């Protein structure tokens, strides 16, 4: 049985139209015109226990909205949603004790107190037994290496340190399901890497089910076998990461390094020249014609080095979103 099950989920935000100017403001006090923003528009997927799924899409695709529905913060417009067998927006305590939502740009820690106080509060809110609390806290503190800053006022922590504390606060009740919304946003590269390592370790050690949204492809590439891609509220891909390449990349990239000057026009006969910076050139060719093109290059050009590569996943995804032919 899947842990998370979504069928034809729709979430339309009712937004009231703001007319410009003072008279518009006054008018809108009495009669408001509403229109719908279709943030999520008929999305279905299910996720099994222990999966770590990347949930990606451009800004405004509907990722955060989906996670908010899954956490019971929003009532959906229509569709069926079941998480651990519960309907999230019933907000049953038994359900709430089994998941956590972490948003990169939001914080739950008490700003003026040391983080440990917020952990204690969460322990009480989630009714975690003393022994389990101690064990979990010790484990997390060690994994994230924050023993020395537990008693520092939260406002005095760096963004990276605070994010670690946010994670601990979110994990103190050992949730079975974790919704991570852009957890690495704003962090420097080293810190991003640490976060990724932690998420991976956490997923493996506790077999927790994790949905991770991010717009850093590195996060997803390193962590997730499966990705779900949405755009404009609609699901456009759900499968293994390398399937994206197979499905959408009908081209390959030939990277060539030349010995001597070559004529760019002649190169164009082989395929689409994406980049030409003597001595290096990148040529995009049809997937099926890749080996032919390579042979031709070797035969007719002064080639020093030649590589056949798949296009970058970032590029594929970007082009899927812009609707362009992927090259």
């Amino acid at each position, binding site marked *: 049985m899947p842990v998370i099950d979504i069928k034809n989920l729709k979430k339309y935000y009712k937004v009231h139209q703001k007319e410009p100017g003072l008279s518009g403001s006054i008018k809108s006090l009495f009669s408001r015109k509403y229109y719908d923003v279709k943030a999520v528009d008929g999305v279905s997927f299910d996720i099994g226990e222990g999966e770590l799924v990347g949930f990606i899409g451009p800004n405004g695709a509907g990722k955060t909205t989906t996670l908010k529905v899954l956490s019971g913060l929003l009532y959906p417009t229509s569709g069926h949603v079941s998480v651990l067998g519960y309907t999230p927006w019933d907000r049953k305590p038994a359900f709430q004790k089994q998941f956590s939502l972490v948003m990169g740009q939001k914080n739950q820690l008490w700003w003026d107190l040391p983080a440990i106080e917020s952990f204690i509060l969460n322990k*009480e809110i989630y009714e975690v037994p003393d022994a389990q609390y101690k064990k979990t806290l010790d484990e997390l503190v060690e994994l994230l290496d924050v023993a020395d800053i537990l008693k520092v006022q939260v406002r005095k922590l760096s963004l990276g340190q605070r994010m670690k504390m946010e994670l601990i606060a979110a994990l103190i009740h050992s949730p079975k399901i974790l919704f991570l919304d852009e957890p690495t946003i704003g962090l420097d590269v080293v810190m991003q890497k640490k976060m990724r390592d932690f998420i991976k370790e956490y997923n493996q050690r506790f077999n927790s089910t994790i949905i991770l949204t991010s717009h850093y492809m590195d996060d997803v590439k390193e962590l997730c076998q499966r990705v779900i891609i949405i755009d404009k509220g609609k699901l456009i891909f759900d499968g293994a990461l390398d399937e994206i390449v197979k499905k959408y990349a009908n081209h390959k990239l030939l990277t060539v390094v030349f010995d001597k000057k070559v004529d760019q026009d002649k190169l164009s006969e082989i395929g689409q020249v994406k980049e030409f910076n003597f001595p290096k050139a990148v040529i995009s060719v049809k997937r099926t014609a890749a080996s032919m093109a390579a042979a031709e290059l070797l035969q007719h050009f002064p080639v020093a080095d030649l590589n056949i590569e798949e296009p970058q996943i970032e590029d594929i995804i970007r082009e899927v979103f812009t609707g362009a032919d992927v090259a």
Partner: protein
Amino acid sequence: MRKYFTVFSLSFQNEFTYRLNFILWRFRNVLRILMTLFLWTAVFSSRDAALGYSRTQMISYVFLVLIIQTLVLAAPSNDNVGGEINNGDLSNYLVKPISYLNFWLSRDWASKFLNIIFAVIEFSLLWLVFRPQLQFSENMVHILLGIIVWVVGIFTYFFLTKMAVFVAFWYPENTWGIMFIVLVFMEILSGFIFPLDVLPTMAQSALQFTPFPYLIYYPVAILIGKFSIAHSLQFLLQSLIWLFITHFLAQKLWRLGLKVYSASGR
């Protein structure tokens, strides 16, 4: 209920983080008490009675109002429910097994607890210095009834302000304005500024059917023995009815509000 006690204790610590703020706030309080005392002393320097109150009665009234309002009108220093609804921080609580109303109630009491401690010290000092003549009812039943109405009023005030702030679910831009108007109304109609029996009888009886006079005027008037026991009992009953009504409405608005809450501010 341990979770709410922890909220209480964290809030208590939190209130101490802005010590200077707190000290200034208390200082303002002392000034206000002094000003009120001086004002009424001046009014009564040339006459024996004003607005139907003798000097002792009036001083007793304002002194009691000041004590009672430290518990009724006081709210946590960082009560920002409207802001939390607007910027989506409310989500932090909604995903957890905790009641938002009770969360704020705990925080409310933490701040009140702190206020009590300081108010007791301040009032004792002021009393020692000025030795104003105070006149309370000598009947213990009055005192008991007055205190119960007072405590009921503390909760009614809490639910009234929450009702006002939950408007933020529908009109996020206007929370501050609405809150301001409600607070002004409450200060005037509760009897905080002047004893309500200086108003025409018509207005007084009309006010009886609003929750406001139960916050300050009735507890004070009962404590100084202005009403018969029977009347006092009647006001206690009515204050309880208001408590139930405001509690019910606050919860109703909360539930309706959650339906339109869009957790914005991503």
